[in-house]
Structure formats: C-alpha cells, structure tokens
C-alpha cells in the first residue's frame, strides 16, 4: 500500500502504547450525570424536563427548533435534580440537566430494524433525532453536514486519529468494523456519494487489515494508508492526502465534492439507523502518563470526569480513590486534559462532564507540563516550515501580540484551524494558537461593529 500524506505538518511522539491494545470496556454508571443542553456547534437546545421529573435512557430532554442544532437525550434512568448552568470542559458554564441515576431500573433493549431499507430522508431524520454530532471533537451537527448545497461524490471517513495518546477510533475500527462500514454506507447514501474512502494512518496496520477484509469485493469503498503525521486528521489535509483535492481558503470540503466524517460518528449513525439508538454514550481514551489504569472506555454522556478517574484507580502512585474523593497529589499529576493533547482543554477541576465531542481524558504528570515562559520570536521559521495551511504563524503572533489584528489576519490568522503545530515546534514557546484565537475574536467583533 502506498502511503500518502499532505505537505508540511510534523511527526509527533505517538504515546499510543498506553492504550492501543486495550479493548473497549464499559464504565460503570456514575451516581449523577450532568448533561449540557449544548454539546454541539449551533443553537442551544431548550430543556424539555424540569427538576423532579423521572427520565429514562434515551429520552429526549432537550430540543431546539433551529436547523443547526441537535436534540439532547438522557443517558441514564433517574430523576432530574436540577436544570441549571454547570461548568463544562471549556470552563464556561452551560445550561445543563442534572440527573440522579437510578441504577436499579432496567436498561432498554434497542429494537433492531433493517437499516438498509431506510430512504435518504429517513436516514437523515434518524441522525438528527439521535442527536449525532461530529465526534472527533468539533461537534458540528451531522445532519447539517449531510445537507450540502452542492453535489457530493465522495465520503472520506476520518480514521487518522492523528492526535497522540488517542486510540478510541482505532479500537472502534477493530471491534466495530462491520458497523463502521455500514455507517459510512448510510452516510454516503444520504448525500448520494458514490465513493467511500477510509483514511487511516499506517501506525494502525491491524485496523487497515480489518477494514480491507471487510470491504473486500466492494468496488466503491477503499482504504488509504496515510503517513503518521500531525495534523493528518484535519479535514482539508485529509482530503488532500486521500483524494488530492484542495479545499480553497474559507471554504468547506463540500466545495470539492467531499464530506468528511469521523469513525465514531459513522458508528453512531449506524446505531441510530439500526437500533434507533440516540447518542447517549461514546468511546473515549483515558490515558496519560499519570493515569493508574489507562484504557478505552465506553462512557455515558454526562459522566463527570471525576467518576472516570475514580473507577480507573485515579493517579498512578497516589492513594486509591475513595467514594468521597480522588487524591490528586501535585507531585504526581500536573494537568488534566479533555480531548487530545494538541487541541484539548486543560481542566481546573474534575467536575466537567463527558460530552459528545470528548475523545479523551488525559492525565499528565508534572514532568509533561510545559512551564517555561515564552520569549520573543527569533524568526527561526520552524512554524512556517510546519504550518499545514501554509500560513505565517510567526507574523500572526507578532502582530496579534501588539494588537495589530488586521495585519495578523493579513498573514493568515483567519485561515488557521488551531492544530497547534506551530506552538509545538516553537523554540521560543510562543502561544501562537492563543494569538490566533485573540485575532479571530477581535476581527469578528470589529466586523460586527462595522455592520
């Protein structure tokens, strides 16, 4: 198999050895779940329940009439304790439904139906009703992505998992190969795409083999081996690598006739169509050098990360967690991240719940935590060498630092998708991604003001 890739980018240490051979295991139910009404990009859902209501697994508890939005479902049986703002993984508080879990009540059996008999519209409706969003991290509503205004000829399944540490998609590819391909086929039917391409980084040879075995004889489905290079899993870079098509700046993949979906999303689509099962749980990677017992876990949405830590033995070398608390000695754990190590969010506490876009929970020892202050740009050009969007991160940082946001935009700040590779390679440790976010915010504010 020829190995393809995109231009620039960088080779990162993988750190996948912690969990890549760990089969997915199901995490126990927490005593309480916190389900944010907005776990997606778009309009927030409105609560359909109030404190005191009994809810069941899969019951819709939040909904919006806006098109760019998805409903939210209860992931447990139990009683609503409150509907109130609760902190999420970004640190911002979001209106959430807090449910006390009733572990005694029986879990539902999902009735099977023939998913191949569904029409395009039925599939799309099922996807929307199930509340499915992009599960790679962006959390964009899938049914919106599957309503492109232009013809689509190819579905690219993003099976790169290019972020270090994360292995949940890898495990899904191995353990749910059939469901994954069925899900991809359903997605292709919705948009009328003829071809399906799986883009897999070649550090997952077993996944490539499993997929090839599954699609043997299928003419329109192919597997492409991709170089293990970050950010291979970014949509534009993935399309370039698999199909050699370039999405113009500021445009979406549909511009070149492509829709990209992540592995977990495709599996969720299959479950929504086959079992009418809403998105109430997801597989995530629990890892990091400070995790006592790393693994790939199937976790109910709304589970606070503290419960995950508690169930998995907490911090390596620290006293085991008790019912009350998870000991977090500062000499053993320095950082808790939700998501991948390149684009994830550092946590200040353990209360944030697992949401639809949570691909990982990572525990870093203090040795892994970057503590050096940043210095002035020395123009080494490493960021320019590695930027997968061919931007000028050095100039973006310099101009944003002194408040010249328009000039930062001139050098490409608005085209940046914040992969973080510039910061990774920067010998001066400059927080360029932070400068980019600042520029985007300031430019948006200035443009809104001008209107």
């Amino acid at each position: 198999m020829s190995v393809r890739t995109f231009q620039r980018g960088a080779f990162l240490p993988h750190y996948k050895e912690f969990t890549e051979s760990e089969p997915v295991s199901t995490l126990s139910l927490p005593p309480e779940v916190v389900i944010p009404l907005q776990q997606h990009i778009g309009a927030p859902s409105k609560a359909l329940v109030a404190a005191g209501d009994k809810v069941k697994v899969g019951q819709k508890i939040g909904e919006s009439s806006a098109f760019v939005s998805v409903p939210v479902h209860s992931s447990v049986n139990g009683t609503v304790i409150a509907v109130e703002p609760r902190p999420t993984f970004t640190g911002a508080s979001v209106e959430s439904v807090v449910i006390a879990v009733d572990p005694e009540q029986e879990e539902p059996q999902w009735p099977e139906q023939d998913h191949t008999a569904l029409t395009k519209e039925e599939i799309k409706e099922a996807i929307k009703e199930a509340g499915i969003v992009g599960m790679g991290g962006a959390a964009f509503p899938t049914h919106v992505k599957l309503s492109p205004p232009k013809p689509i000829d190819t579905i690219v399944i993003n099976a790169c998992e290019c972020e270090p540490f994360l292995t949940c998609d890898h495990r899904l590819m191995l353990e749910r190969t059939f469901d994954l391909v069925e899900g991809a086929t359903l997605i292709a039917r919705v948009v009328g795409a003829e071809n399906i391409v799986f883009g897999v980084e070649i550090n997952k040879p077993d996944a490539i083999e499993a997929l090839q075995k599954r699609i043997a004889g299928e003419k329109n489905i192919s597997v492409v081996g991709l170089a293990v290079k970050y950010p291979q899993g970014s949509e534009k870079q993935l399309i370039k690598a698999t199909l050699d098509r370039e999405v113009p700046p500021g445009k979406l993949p549909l511009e070149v006739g492509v829709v990209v979906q992540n592995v977990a999303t495709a599996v969720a689509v299959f479950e929504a169509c086959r079992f009418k099962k809403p998105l109430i749980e997801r597989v995530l990677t629990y890892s990091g050098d400070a995790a006592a017992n790393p693994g790939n876990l199937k976790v109910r949405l709304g589970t606070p990360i503290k419960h995950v830590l508690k169930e998995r033995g907490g911090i390596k070398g620290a006293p085991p967690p008790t019912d009350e608390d998870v000991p977090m000695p500062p000499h053993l754990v320095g950082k808790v991240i939700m998501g991948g190590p390149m684009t994830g969010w550092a946590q200040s506490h353990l209360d944030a719940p697992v949401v639809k876009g949570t691909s990982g929970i990572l525990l870093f020892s203090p040795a892994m935590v970057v503590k050096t202050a940043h210095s002035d740009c020395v123009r080494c050009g490493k960021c320019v060498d590695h930027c997968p969007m061919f931007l000028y991160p050095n100039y973006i940082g310099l101009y944003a630092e002194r408040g010249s946001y328009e000039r930062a935009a001139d050098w490409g700040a608005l085209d940046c998708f914040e992969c973080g590779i510039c910061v990774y390679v920067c010998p001066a440790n400059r927080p360029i991604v932070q400068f980019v976010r600042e520029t985007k915010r300031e430019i948006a504010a200035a443009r809104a003001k001008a209107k």
Partner: protein
Amino acid sequence: MAEQEVLLTVSPSPHLRSPENIPSAMRDVLIALLPVTLCSIYMYRWYAVFLIAVSMAAAALFELLFRKIMKKQATLHDCSALVTGLLLALCLRPGTPWWSVILGAFFAVGIAKELMGGLGWNRFNPALFGLVAVTLLAPLYVGTTATFAPLRQFFGPLDALTQATPLALIKQGLYEQISLSRLFLLSPGGALGETSALALFIGGAYLLYKKHIRWQTPVSIIGTVLILAIFWGNPLENIASGIPLYHIFAGGLLLGAFFMATDWVTSPITEKGELIFGIAIGILVMLFRKALGPTEGVAFSILIMNAFVPLIDRLTKRPKFGEVPAKKAAVAPAGTAVSKSN
C-alpha cells in the same frame, strides 16, 4: 477539594512541546563551531584562546549590563551572547588588540542586539555588525596596536600572524603559494574562523542535520559564488587554475554562508526567500572581491542583505493552502510559474 483544584495547570492548547528550545539550539551552534574553533587554536595557540575568551566574556557581560540598564530580565541562559561572542572572535585576525575585541562585542551585543530590543528584534547580524563597526573605526586607532605588544612576549612568536591572507594572494595572482588542499584542511592567514574549510563544512553539516538551518541559504551563496567565479573572465582558464574553489575555501565565505547568513533572526522566513537572499549575497560577495577595493566583502554583503529581509519576506509571501486555484494549476503546463510550495 478546593485546595487541590488550584494545583492543576490550566493553559491553552497544545499541551505538548518539542524538546527543542532556544538554549538547546544555541548550544548546537556552539557545538557546530567547535571544529573550526579547535583549528584556530591549533593554528594560533594562545592568540586564539585569548581572543575567543575575551570576546565571549565581553559579549556576555555587555548583554548583562545592557539588560540591567534597560531593566529587563537577564537572558544569559539562552546562550545567544556566547554564540555572538564566539562568532565575533572567529571573524577577527589573531593579534587583534583586546580593547578592539571588547569594542566589537559592545557594538555586537549592546548596540546591534540589545538596543534593538533584544534577541529576535535585531535587524542585523550582531557579530557581523560588531566586526564591521571595529573595521570602520580602525583608522582611529592605527598605531595604537602597540597596546597589544606587551602581551606578545607571553604568547610567544608566531609566523602565522604576519602571513598574507589567501584572499590577498588570490587578488595579487599569487594563489599558487598556497595549495588548495592546505586551504581546505588547515591553513593560516586571515581570521580565526578562516583556518579550515573542512571544519566549517563539518559544522554546517551538523546544523543541517539538526535542522537548525535550511540548505537553501548556504547552497545558494556558495553556488552563486562558484558560478560567478567560473564565469567571471575566461571560464576554461578559471577552471584550470582552480580559482573558483579558492574563492569558496578562502576568506570568510563558508563561515558567513553556514553561520552568519543562516542566523534565524536576520534571514528570510521562507525557503524561497532564503534562496533569493543567498543568491544576492553571493553576487555581492563577488562584486566586493572582484570589482571593489577591499579583499573581503562577506560581512558587508550579509549585512546589506539583512536590511532587505522584511522586503524579501513580503515579496515571497506564499499562497495559503488551497489558494492556488486548481483551474490555473491544471491549465498551466508543468514547469511554469505556478508556484508549487513544498
């Protein structure tokens, strides 16, 4: 529970860093300069040791002093002052008076770097700026070299000190006095850093291997000089005499191509920019050597091109990912002006 919450580090993504930082890169530059430094010490003994020690110490002290005066944090740990100090020493001829070295370090670190805002903000290569400053001020202290004389009895006599530089010999048509192989391996004459072309190639190769510099700058400078040296005059005669290789091995060309023009701060930010930068330096070097008065012009050439770096950056601004329209790229036949950024 509250007390443990504050102990987690919260910082924006990404949460991983490459192990490389400015101090480690600067240390690699010092390592890359080690072969030529050893060659110069072998050649000039205590004269070289003295020059290098004074220059590095002065550079470090001026950095400390200037940052103290400007109430900025000390940055000695980034090792950039030591690199500047060593490079300055390597640009000087043995027997350069100690106070001239200190004056050079003052201009290099104090004026060219710290007064410009510190590492990263300097427009001109500090070591070359220091070198050119003392060169231009030389007429002021002709005759005062006697200050250095008392020290000589301690260092002992050295023939190498009074030898004509290879470049001067070339200019006088006397290049046959010095064989090409000696010039390549180890030969006296000129500055400390001009003693061995081989040592400079080894150092340059190390920097390339460590990916601190790109091939574009040294290759375009050396390539341009080589081509011009061949075609300036009768090409056949030039090749037969080996003069083009003299131009590369002699003088400060290799030191400039591998260690000065590649300086992160004062060179263009893209590969394409570096090619333009390097070719321009090569042309200027040959103009200085062939058409203008002084025998050596590498330092001036690089400093002149340092001033053009912002302009080069703007003119070579590459298209963003997906910005080159597919249609245009498809219509244009291979090998035309459609830039294919790699």
